[in-house]
């Protein structure tokens, strides 16, 4: 297999019967679909980040700063909806999952390539519906991304359309999940036993199960909200005999496991990057693989910890608090195994590794602050404060966001055949890391001091830390800008990227760069594990 030949032919970039945009939006090639997802989710990340920046600007000083209270409400709602449903949930599984999974398994494509394309179309249609909802009807939704009743059933803003958009996005997620489960069961190359599957693929497997089993619940719940708004059924509205707490149950039955749809693929990315850049086989392969399934299972039984102050029964609070602590065990298993992998390794601090290392720290801080929220007694003190916002961003941005950038630096050069510059990547990472901690750690302190979330205005004693947090957002923005500029320029105009410069042992590093349309010239026969670096040289 000659890398030079593939480069000359452009691999999957060139091999297509169609031309123009049709070669992309009608392609069933998992790599093209993965890239389409990548462009979309990344675009929405930038939109969401811009909205987040505006929210921080508004909160920089007490009182009205740059927008009205109603705009602020719409702003944090749209920031949440865009970031959650359009960026983080499809972020790693749909983009990098599509790009990498079939190749890691030794397959030529996913099990159902046309369903795969259909699920991208559903994503695109759902995204358009959500965007249209912002500018039509009664204007952008102002409910927060959770669409809590009874407010979401009564507000005059365009909740129905936004919720319908999320409903369509859910089907995209379910189809991707079904595709990945089937691919992992049915499409593995000869010799690719369950214990030779790369841990990124294992994490996608656990994620896919959650996508398939939990997403229908939110689809039904959101449809019920629409019927409540249109027909006034009284399902959730207490003045009509409905139960608003039941809405919270149904919403979080999906949306808590959805947190694991967001973080598990990120953990998979880290599990693949750490051994490669430590030049050591992963420590505790089976435990990491098993802990992904354990997180998916245990994470599906803890939704009630979002509802301690909702009026749920005391027994419910007790049970869900106990179950929440169980999730900490498989999460800690992963962290300890990553650290053990690095122990006495030959660590190489390149951009993917720096993002991966910061994932471990930031996810651990986020996870530990999660225990404060999981314990019912302490949660009541900080519920609905900026502490929750800080915790959530530590896990979701410090975790999944940094893993997304780690994956981008690790895998994208393989698919583009060009590489970014190392130095700007590291400088950008430093800015991101520093800005991130200034922004979100300050938020956690603010929350401890009692600053509520989703409030347009605040007491003067919170002014100083809010100012600091806003400055942090600027530093982080500078970091993101450097990283994005460097990636964009490098991947399209950078130095050629050939071979296996990082010395990865999983299958994607054994094929030409960029990968050919059919991935493998001959069906591979797998003879070693994905972290068996013997015989894999580093240039």
């Amino acid at each position: 297999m000659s890398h030079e030949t593939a480069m000359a032919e452009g691999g999957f970039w060139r091999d297509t019967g169609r031309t123009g945009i049709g070669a992309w939006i009608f392609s069933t090639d998992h790599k093209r679909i993965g890239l389409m997802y990548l462009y979309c989710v990344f675009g929405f990340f930038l939109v969401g980040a811009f909205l987040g920046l505006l929210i921080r600007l508004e909160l920089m000083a007490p009182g009205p700063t740059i927008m009205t209270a109603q705009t602020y409400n719409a702003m944090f709602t749209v920031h949440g909806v865009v970031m959650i449903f359009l960026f983080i949930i499809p972020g790693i599984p749909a983009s990098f999952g599509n790009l990498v999974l079939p190749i890691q398994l030794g397959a030529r494509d996913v099990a159902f390539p046309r369903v795969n394309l259909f699920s991208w179309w559903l994503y695109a249609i759902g995204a358009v519906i959500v965007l249209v909802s912002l500018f039509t009807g009664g204007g952008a939704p102002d409910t927060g991304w959770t669409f809590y009743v009874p407010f979401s059933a009564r507000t005059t803003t365009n909740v129905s359309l936004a919720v319908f958009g999320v409903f369509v996005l859910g089907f995209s997620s379910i189809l991707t999940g079904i595709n990945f489960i089937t691919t992992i069961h049915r499409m593995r190359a000869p010799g690719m036993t369950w214990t030779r599957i790369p841990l990124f693929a294992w994490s996608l497997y656990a994620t896919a199960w959650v996508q398939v089993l939990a997403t229908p619940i939110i689809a039904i719940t959101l449809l019920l909200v629409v019927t409540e708004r249109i027909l006034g059924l009284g399902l959730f509205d207490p003045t009509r005999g409905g139960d608003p707490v039941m809405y919270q149950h149904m919403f979080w039955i999906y949306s808590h496991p959805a947190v694991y749809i967001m973080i598990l693929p990120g953990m998979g990315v880290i599990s693949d990057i750490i051994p490669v850049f430590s030049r050591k086989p992963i420590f505790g392969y089976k435990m990491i693989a098993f802990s992904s399934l354990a997180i998916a299972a245990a994470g599906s039984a803890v939704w009630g910890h979002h509802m301690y102050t909702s009026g749920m029964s005391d027994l419910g609070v007790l049970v869900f608090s106990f179950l929440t602590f169980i999730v900490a065990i498989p999460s800690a298993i992963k962290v300890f195994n990553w650290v053990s992998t690095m122990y006495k390794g030959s660590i190489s601090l390149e951009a993917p590794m720096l993002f991966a290392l910061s994932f471990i720290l930031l996810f651990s801080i986020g996870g530990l602050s999660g225990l404060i929220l999981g314990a019912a007694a302490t949660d009541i003190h900080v519920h609905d404060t900026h502490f929750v916002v800080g915790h959530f961003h530590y896990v979701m941005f410090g975790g999944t966001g940094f893993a997304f950038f780690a994956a981008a630096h690790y895998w994208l050069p393989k698919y583009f055949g060009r590489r970014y510059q190392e130095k700007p990547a590291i400088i950008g990472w430093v800015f991101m890391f520093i800005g991130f901690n200034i922004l979100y750690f300050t938020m956690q302190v603010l929350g401890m001091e009692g600053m509520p979330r989703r409030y347009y205005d605040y007491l003067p004693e919170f002014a100083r830390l809010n100012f600091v947090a806003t400055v942090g957002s600027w530093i982080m923005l500078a970091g993101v800008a450097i990283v994005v500029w460097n990636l964009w320029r490098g991947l399209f105009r950078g130095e050629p990227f050939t071979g296996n410069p990082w010395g990865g042992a999983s299958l994607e590093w054994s094929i030409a760069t960029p990968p050919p349309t059919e991935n493998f010239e001959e069906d591979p026969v797998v003879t070693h594990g994905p972290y068996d670096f013997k015989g894999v040289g580093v240039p």
Partner: protein
Amino acid sequence: MTEEHAEHILSYGKLATVWVTLLVLTAATIMVTRVELGVWKVWAALAIASVKSGLVIAFFMHMKYEPRLFRIILFVALFTLAGFIGGTFFDVLYR
């Protein structure tokens, strides 16, 4: 990993038997509402509905003739759904 299994075609007789059984069970569901069973009325209706859906899944959807893996996957889904519904009862029953 491409383990194939033979297509299994059900006879019309068997399909008709299942269909008639479903009709009988539908009639039973209606009859049960006319009997005074107190709190057991709901359980009786749910039990009949479970048997009916079991028949549909086993015969009309061919689950009886599929590999064991598919049955395991089906039960994982059912078990998860039962867990979701059961979990809410920690709240609803004790509020």
